[in-house]
């Protein structure tokens, strides 16, 4: 009897410990579930993360922010002869184009055993440039004038212009022609609803990465299993489970309870949550921080008479103690920004005008601009108008709300009145920022790629107006002819050193004129189990999952 009692106690204790998982499965908590699994329809971080495990782009930016081949064998460049500048017929938008020849990995195969060939490239291009296919960013496909098939694995792309990014095909998400062509040709307009990526997501023929989708619970979980036809190095785990838990407190609880092994940095905890988590549970998990290309800034509306004055913008920036905010709120994990160029980018310039915290300088600039402190402590001009404006951001974003409160308090000390007026993200981004309805400053972030030319955010033709149907993302309304010329020139300049000079000048102008008040580049936090190694965040928009075969279990 006593023996049975002991056995019962052991079994009971084991049941309390929860299910034991072998290390052949990795369960990753993510805060978002992809709306679609189609590589080229909708742009979502959750989808990019999934596709990193299951597909490979032709090229990508790696951890050193260098362009590298993933599905191609060798990166074609003008220097190695893989790309050739060619004249375009008269009447073309540009005088010259470029012919780029790629060779696909010889062993690259879809998960059903069908080889990946140039037929898939052609099909992807056809879908991408079709007006009704629903592909989100069609510009890259429409720039392709023709694709010459050389053999099953080699093709030459003819582009309608020469820009320095000519050989970057990072977003050319390959589609399986042998499965998708018939569906697309039957009804291109309905293709986005009928694609097998969403109607038959576990079809192995859709995937060609180290993993393929084996099972899905829509909205909740995606089970990936090793792809037997993967040509590269074998990944460490038999299975990977992506478990979507939108609430970050619940995400944390799931990690602590052992329901998930790690929280992805790309789609996980906010930085302040991760710092608090590390303080409490740093002995059980490895928290990896990586500054990324999310440029957090304050966008002034140049239609505002107050903020169109450069002296006021400079005073506002001098009056913000960004280092202290970073230390106090983010444990110093963010990178304070000088301009919109990330310090990890090769063309980053350090020798531009900087704005260290200097309240005396801020006061002097405000006085010079005609804003004098009155007996009530607030500044006003000679006409009696108070130095007052609003700051707007996304309601519910705790970090931004905290930052706004600190800014309000730091500016109040100088007699500047700031009202915080936050809105739900869809209203803020969908209308307020897009239609330039903010009367003061808008606090938000831009996500960009390595060496991203800021055409959409700084070029004067990109100011959203009613006439252009609110297109463009230069929401501040900033205009500078020299900036426009620099942007136009740097896009087509192939010489890296010449481009460096242009970038240098652009950053100088940015720092001097402050088209936006730079705050910092956000950091991502990866919460990893102590036994997992090899995850190396890129800091750019390309996911760690693209290098999943480097992830290793260590005891």
């Amino acid at each position, binding site marked *: 009897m006593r023996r049975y009692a002991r056995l019962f106690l052991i079994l009971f204790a084991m049941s*309390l410990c929860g299910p034991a998982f072998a290390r052949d499965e990795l369960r990753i908590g993510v805060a978002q579930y992809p709306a679609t699994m189609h590589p080229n329809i909708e742009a979502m971080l959750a989808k990019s993360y999934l596709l990193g495990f299951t597909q490979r782009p032709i090229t990508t930016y790696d951890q050193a922010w260098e362009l590298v081949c993933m599905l191609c064998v060798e990166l074609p460049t003008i220097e190695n002869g893989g790309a050739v500048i060619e004249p375009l017929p008269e009447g073309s938008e540009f005088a010259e184009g470029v012919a780029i020849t790629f060779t696909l990995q010889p062993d690259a195969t879809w998960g059903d055993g069908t080889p990946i060939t140039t037929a898939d490239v052609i099909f992807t291009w056809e879908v991408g440039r079709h007006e009704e296919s629903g592909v*989100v*960013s069609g510009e890259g496909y429409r720039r392709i004038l023709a694709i010459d098939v050389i053999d099953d694995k080699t093709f030459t792309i003819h582009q309608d212009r020469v820009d320095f990014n000519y050989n970057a095909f990072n977003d050319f998400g390959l589609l399986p022609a042998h499965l998708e062509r018939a569906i697309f040709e039957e009804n291109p307009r309905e293709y986005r609803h009928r694609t097998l990526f969403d109607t038959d997501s576990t079809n192995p023929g859709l995937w060609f990465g180290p993993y393929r989708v084996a099972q899905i619970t829509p909205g909740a979980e995606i089970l990936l299993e090793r792809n037997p036809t993967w040509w590269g190095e074998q990944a460490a785990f038999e299975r990977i489970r992506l478990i979507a838990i939108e609430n970050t407190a619940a995400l944390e609880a799931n990690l602590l*309870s052992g329901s998930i092994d790690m929280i992805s940095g790309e789609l996980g905890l906010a930085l302040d949550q991760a710092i608090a988590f590390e303080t409490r549970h740093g002995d059980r998990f490895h928290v990896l921080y990586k500054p990324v290309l999310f440029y957090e800034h304050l966008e002034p509306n140049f239609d505002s008479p107050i903020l169109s004055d450069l002296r006021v913008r400079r005073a506002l920036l001098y009056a913000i103690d960004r280092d202290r905010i970073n230390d106090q709120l983010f444990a110093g994990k963010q990178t304070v920004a000088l301009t919109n160029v990330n310090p990890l980018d090769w063309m980053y310039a350090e020798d531009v005008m900087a704005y260290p915290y200097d309240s005396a300088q801020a006061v002097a600039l405000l006085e010079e601009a005609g804003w004098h402190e009155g007996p009530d402590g607030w500044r006003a001009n000679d006409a009696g108008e108070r130095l007052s404006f609003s700051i707007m951001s996304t309601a519910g974003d705790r970090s931004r709300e905290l930052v706004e409160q600190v800014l309000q308090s730091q500016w109040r000390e100088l007699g500047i009145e700031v009202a915080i007026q936050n809105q739900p993200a869809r209203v803020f981004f969908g*209308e307020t920022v897009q239609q330039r309805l903010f009367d003061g400053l808008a606090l938000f972030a831009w996500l960009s790629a390595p060496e991203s030319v800021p055409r959409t955010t700084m070029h004067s033709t990109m100011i959203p107006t009613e006439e252009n149907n609110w297109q463009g993302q230069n929401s501040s309304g900033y205009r500078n002819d020299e900036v426009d010329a620099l942007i136009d020139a740097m896009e087509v300049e192939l010489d890296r050193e010449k481009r460096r000079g242009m970038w240098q000048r652009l950053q100088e102008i940015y720092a001097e004129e402050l088209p936006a008040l730079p705050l910092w580049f956000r950091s991502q936090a990866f919460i990893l189990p102590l036994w997992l190694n090899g995850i190396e965040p890129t800091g750019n928009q390309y996911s760690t999952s693209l290098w999943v075969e480097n992830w290793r279990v260590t005891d």
Partner: protein
Amino acid sequence: MTGFLLRRLVETAILLALMSFAIYGLIGLMPGDPIDLMMTADPTLTSADIARLKTVYGLDQPLIDRYLAWAGSALQGDFGYSRIYAQPAAAVIGDRLGNTILLMGGAFALALALALPLGMLAAWRSGRPLDHAINLVAFAGISMPQFWLAILAIILFAVILGWLPAGGMGDGSIGGSLNHLILPVVTLAIASTGGILRYVRASMREALRQDFIRTARAKGVSTARLLWFHALRNAMIPVVTILALDFGALFSGALITETMFSWLGMGKTIYDAIMGNDYNLALLGLMIATALVLACNLLADLAYAWLDPRVRYR
């Protein structure tokens, strides 16, 4: 009775048609559309891309035309595609409704099972320590924020004790789903029990003061029979009205609980659809929630006649 039912059904159909127009209009009037949201996610989108996508998604058409197109398809059983789930909206709602019925049905049954006897007991012992104790528990349930209760439950049962999963839907097996249901059901039930209990208590106190109760007592009817068969039936008429409203609302889901426990129910789905500008999904979800509220109220009307034979339908 048949005439009453037919009339109510016609009224329901008209109300649903009006509601569909109102909901479609309200969603359409909200700032931003799906393409605006795509623009914020992908700064590389060009003006040409945006114009093309607006045409593909039909957003270049006037709102009334889009509504009429939707209504025409809906009458033929085609409720369109959900943009944020890349599936037919009816399929998404079908799955979520099943999950919600499991979650909310379980919570409702548990809340009822607790609130009825406790409410009766509190009314029977009105003003005494037991009544005060039950009231205290009821107010605690009403006033405790659901997200806080959910976090506490997760920390205690999933993190510290490790008895139950912290969230999710399980592996699809009955055992797995039940295991995942326990915490959200209990959390929701605690929040609902207090409210129902207070209604039952108030209504029972009123019923226990009636002459027929005194007569029944004088005739020597046992306490249990007095409470369950004489007082409760009479006390249930106002409670049924409240329960019908609550039960109908249950099908629109519980946003906070579903979010905290990653339970794929109607509440979270409708919320995501509205925030993600998924017209088809939001519309269908809200329509179904409306229809169920109306159906539950119809059932409540029918229940009145069962509870009180003096009620007649005309």
